[in-house]
């Protein structure tokens, strides 16, 4: 056993990288759920984004185009969910599951030719002086654009929901769609926009996984990241700032267990590999045990079918 090999600075730097896919997917899902839609297809959209981004990045040699394609792929798949749940009024839980099942198969289908391929490298951002700060530079200022984009996205979503009129309307739709409809807001359109945003975020998160974090393509490579993202939204009790906290917490667990595996800790490898899922469950239990809080923050119309009768 050699814990000396675990360097806290590197650990934090890799924590930021490990958390980014989950953070992106979770912040997207937060907006979706705030509009009153429960999309359980995050895993499917992530893996679709992962392969779309990977394929385009390999074909064009440009990671940027890959990330854009991933967003488009995730959004396109999410709109299938949107069409089914919003226009054809299907059950959101079942449709979300269908999205995940389809996404896993579809991505494996596209990805066949890409197993074992190496994607083009994503450049780290050159932040000049900041990157040269001793310790902090390595920890915080030596990442690629997407890491900072994900942080900016959290801030934007927080500000959008809290301070803007559009954010208020989105929340109104999520709290009471009938009232929002009566006030003349286009419930279905607003929700479709939210769903597409969530899909794009999940797709981007997936592509970050396949292009930067791993970086290669394997079938089913998201291995539950989408579900953890869903759990983080509950953990965060639907608040943007706490999504960041949750994602970094889980990124921390994931990175730490990998480091402990490498250091040869005298605990079965399987237990360490299962730890991110176990921690997620534990946190879910702690959050839901606190009744009042969980109930207060959940959007009141979450998961309910909206049909404009008049």
């Amino acid at each position, binding site marked *: 056993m050699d814990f000396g090999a675990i360097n806290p600075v590197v650990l934090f730097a890799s924590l930021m990288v490990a958390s980014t896919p989950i953070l992106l997917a979770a912040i997207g899902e937060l907006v979706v759920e705030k509009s009153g839609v429960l999309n359980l297809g995050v895993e499917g959209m992530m893996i679709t984004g992962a392969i779309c981004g990977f394929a385009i990045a390999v074909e064009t040699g440009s990671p940027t185009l890959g990330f854009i394609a991933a967003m488009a792929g995730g959004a396109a798949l999410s709109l299938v969910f949107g069409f*089914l749940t919003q226009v054809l009024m299907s059950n959101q839980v*079942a449709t979300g599951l269908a999205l995940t099942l389809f996404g896993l*198969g579809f991505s494996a289908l596209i990805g066949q030719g890409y197993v074992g391929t190496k994607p083009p490298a994503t450049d780290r951002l050159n932040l000049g002086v900041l990157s040269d700060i001793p310790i902090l530079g390595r920890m915080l200022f030596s990442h690629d654009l997407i890491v900072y984009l994900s942080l900016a996205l959290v801030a934007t979503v927080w500000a959008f929901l809290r301070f803007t009129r559009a954010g208020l309307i989105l929340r109104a739709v999520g709290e009471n769609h009938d009232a929002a409809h009566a006030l003349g807001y286009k419930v279905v359109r607003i929700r479709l926009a939210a769903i597409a945003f969530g899909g794009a975020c999940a797709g981007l998160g997936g592509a970050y996984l396949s292009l930067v974090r791993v970086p290669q393509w394997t079938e089913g490579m998201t291995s539950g990241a989408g579900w953890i993202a869903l759990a983080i939204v509950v953990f965060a009790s639907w608040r943007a700032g706490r999504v960041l906290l949750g994602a970094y917490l889980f990124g921390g667990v994931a990175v730490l267990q990998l480091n402990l595996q490498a250091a040869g800790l005298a605990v079965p490898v399987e237990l360490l590999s299962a730890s991110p*899922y176990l921690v997620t469950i534990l946190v*879910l*239990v702690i959050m839901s045990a606190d009744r009042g809080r969980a109930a207060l923050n959940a959007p009141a119309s979450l998961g309910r079918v909206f049909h404009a009768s008049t």
Partner: protein
Amino acid sequence: MIRLEKRPQPSRAWTVAAPLLAVALTMVAGGLMFALLGKNPVDAIRTIFWDPLFNQQFASYSRPQLLVKAGPLILIAIGLSLGFRAGIWNIGAEGQYIMGALAGAGVALALYPLDTWILFPLMVLAGALGGWAWAMIPALLKTRFRTNEILVSLLLVYVAQQVLASMSLGLMRNPEGGGFPGSRNLQQYPAAANPELFEGTGMHWGVVAAFIAVIAAYVLLNRHMLGFQIRLTGQSPRAARFAGVDTNALVLFCLGTSGALAGLAGLFEVSGPAGQVNIDFNVGYGFTAIIVAFLGRLHPVGILLAGLLMALTYIGGELAQFMLGIPAAAIQAFQGMLLFFLLGVDVLSNYNIRLGRREIA
């Protein structure tokens, strides 16, 4: 202008017709997908849906496979449908399937080389208990702490996979296996084996259990108070509460039953067709069973038919892979598509479609 008008009650005709329409639409869309892959769509669809049953060359092999594949799907889907009807979402059947197999195989391997008839019944019991116990985790967390059972049951699948890996590399590894992962082969352990009951039919104890489950679920849902409470809770949770339905007990029952049935499916698989505990033991029956449950309209008889159809796509998919080089992943996407179409066409059973402008009353 197309408008949707909610029906006072779901249309009976469409409830039956919708799955058929969905299958037809999936064939069209799937054909399109196969065409994009550069395969002849008609050939592909025929290879998947027709050849396994009626092609003289393959049918003798693939017909028995139909029951082998349909058995676990039906068994798991019946369990899931009870919960789905009541709005209790167990989507971690894959994990319960693994844990059932591990518990059952564990009993057999611990007692190796015991040779007595009582061993197999003991394994069946252990298998059901294993799946039940794994499902009780989300159930108890839900009743005690109101934790979302969807997320917990699903996350436990990944944990179960780690347990499976640990078992096939460690505790249950075949001591005579030359260091390869995987347990002893239970098919070569007569007291623990779950063999084909009638030569050439594919019928094994798991298939028998599946048929029993179909009948039991039918009786439960149509003739028993508990079945009524399940349906009531699904249709109107509020009304159910006023009617004195104990929601917590229902959660425990639905999750427990579906877990036990998934565990049984795992046990019959590990002692029969699969033969041994190994890392790649689970092949996604627990997830496909979700599609089966919906395709069968959460109705026992429907699930029976849907399970057979899904089994057909598995076998046909393998055949198409072999004959036409259609990748296995395409079949998975195809199954996912089927669920999309099913959920989509369901609008027809719940809503009337009206054309033209609305009259002003």
